[in-house]
């Protein structure tokens, strides 16, 4: 579900134009750029479903770039094209084009490493220092079967049942999100997004602080805790849904993803967790790449309408969706359905208690986010936050100012962040640093490969499958094969 969307999906002609225009200082903004002020800036928590949408929107805008010659006011990538149209194509040497491709890949990869690593770091530090974030506590509405079974066979069966129930929630949420988007229920999506982030920011933050305080074993008074929660939550709402400084926004996205990953890690039983990781990767692959896949439909619909992806729930390393000084009045709320977690839509269950409902909602929201960015296809549980899509700004156009940043860059959904962190959290649960580091490196390598593929294919791609596959393979092989092997080598004092 996570999709890395290469916003720079230009045809070679456009590329040359882009390259040429870099020599120009002319910046065209204004009427051609849609006004995106009314878009929520950050909706990180939306789980994967949203993430994909974002990526699709980005992809849509990017691909429209290559399609259309005329300047389409709805496509703000055309502003770049417009700029670039001034120079003839033949003057661009081909090698610059290649340079741009490569340059795009490397800098973006590095820019994506930092937030993903930070998110994982927060999750692992929290798990190691507090004892309340260990799995096997209360059961969860999404995975109702427990794994305390006597035989392995029974355990596998119940884990599979849990997984399918979970996936059912996710798929339902995605489908509902897509339906809402198709029927232009933007207000519902927007309201849902706000509710999700609200719940995520306040409720989960409060429980996070209670766990941290309990593990620190210092008395903290209620007034201070409420005050801190209120402050961080309110500022988060400001930064995410309105305007705020970019580093603060990114920090909130990372932190929200980490919180969600912690919640997931706490409530997912052991074997169910591994199965869910695998099945979600497959679902991501299907939903993004198949012609009938929901996330792909979302992207294409957004593309047809010329709308941008909902920026909430996308992690952007650059200034995305910047509002320029002379923006035209907003045409309509441009909601990227991606941001909305389809999962969120599913959360209406009166029979659940408050906590379960909240968690469900949180998951849904999270899922929406994931969709946007590399996680495009996982509209899964609403409570899962979508991995923040990391928007990588293209650094290879120094002359072009920030206006271009929004359009360029890779977006990574929040859902991807969350699932990477969950994988790493489960890997670190054994206490063996070999396993943890092996999984971390494999996740990063998977991310590199996905970005490389994105740079080559230039379409929305799911960010989960490759990384999760590498992570899973490396986890199980390290635990069962490499670990004992190194132990034996060490005992025998054989150095290789």
């Amino acid at each position: 579900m996570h999709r890395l969307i290469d916003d720079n999906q230009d045809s070679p002609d456009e590329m040359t134009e882009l390259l040429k225009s870099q020599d120009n200082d002319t910046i065209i903004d204004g009427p051609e750029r849609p006004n995106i002020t009314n878009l929520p800036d950050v909706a990180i928590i939306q789980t994967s479903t949203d993430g994909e949408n974002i990526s699709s929107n980005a992809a849509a805008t990017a691909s429209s770039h290559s399609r259309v010659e005329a300047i389409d006011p709805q496509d703000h990538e055309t502003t770049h094209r417009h700029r670039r149209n001034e120079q003839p194509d033949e003057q661009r040497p081909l090698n610059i084009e290649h340079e741009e491709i490569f340059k795009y890949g490397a800098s973006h990869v590095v820019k994506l490493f930092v937030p993903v690593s930070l998110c994982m770091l927060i999750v692992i530090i929290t798990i190691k220092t507090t004892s309340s974030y260990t799995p096997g506590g209360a059961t969860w509405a999404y995975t109702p079967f427990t794994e305390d079974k006597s035989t392995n066979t029974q355990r596998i069966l119940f884990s599979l049942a849990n997984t399918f129930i979970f996936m059912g929630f996710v798929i339902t949420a995605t489908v509902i999100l897509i339906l809402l988007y198709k029927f232009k229920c933007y207000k519902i999506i927007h309201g849902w997004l706000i509710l999700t982030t609200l719940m995520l920011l306040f409720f989960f933050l409060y429980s996070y602080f209670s766990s941290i305080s309990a593990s620190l074993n210092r008395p903290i008074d209620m007034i201070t805790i409420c005050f801190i929660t209120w402050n961080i939550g309110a500022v988060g709402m400001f930064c995410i849904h309105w305007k705020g400084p970019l580093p603060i926004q990114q920090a909130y996205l990372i932190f929200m993803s980490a919180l969600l990953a912690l919640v997931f890690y706490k409530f997912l039983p052991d074997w169910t967790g591994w199965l869910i990781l695998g099945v979600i990767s497959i679902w991501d692959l299907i939903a993004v790449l198949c012609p009938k896949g929901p996330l792909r439909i979302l992207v294409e619909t957004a593309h047809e309408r010329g709308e941008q992806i909902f920026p909430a729930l996308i992690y952007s390393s650059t200034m995305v969706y910047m509002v320029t000084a002379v923006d035209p009045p907003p045409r309509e709320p441009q909601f990227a359905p991606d941001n909305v977690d389809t999962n969120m839509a599913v959360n209406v269950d009166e029979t659940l208690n408050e906590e379960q409902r909240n968690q469900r909602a949180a998951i849904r929201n999270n899922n929406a986010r994931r969709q946007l960015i590399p996680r495009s296809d996982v509209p899964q549980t609403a409570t899962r936050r979508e991995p923040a899509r990391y928007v990588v700004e293209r650094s290879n156009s120094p002359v072009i100012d920030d206006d271009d940043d929004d359009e360029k860059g890779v977006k990574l959904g929040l859902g991807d962040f969350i699932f990477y962190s969950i994988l790493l959290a489960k890997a670190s649960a054994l206490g063996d640093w070999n396993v943890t580091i092996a999984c971390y490196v494999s996740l990063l390598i998977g991310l590199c490969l996905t970005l490389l593929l994105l740079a080559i294919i230039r379409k929305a791609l799911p960010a989960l499958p490759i990384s999760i596959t590498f992570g899973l393979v490396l986890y199980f092989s390290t635990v069962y094969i490499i670990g004992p092997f190194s132990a034996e080598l060490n005992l025998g004092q054989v150095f290789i």
Partner: protein
Amino acid sequence: MVSLSKKSPEERLNICRKYYRAGFAFLPLLWLINAIWFYKQAFKVEPYPQQAQIRTYVIRSAIGTLIWIIIIVAWNITFQLLRTKMGPLGDFLTFVYPRGYY
């Protein structure tokens, strides 16, 4: 993700003003972010008509942040020192009870 340089002066003033006003709802963090974010705009950029107003907002936000920090630190010191002596009120206000060791 907003870049202040991309916005018109009116918009910047608008954002600064909203952050300033919202900070009165017990949100010193908002004031702190306001002061840091708009510091460059208020003092380091060439003057433009709204800069004077932004400057007042930034200065007031900074002062408000300082006042809140003093209040919070004072309250925490009071609470930590008097928690056990306040009786039922101290227990009521405590969020987390430290575990004893044995």
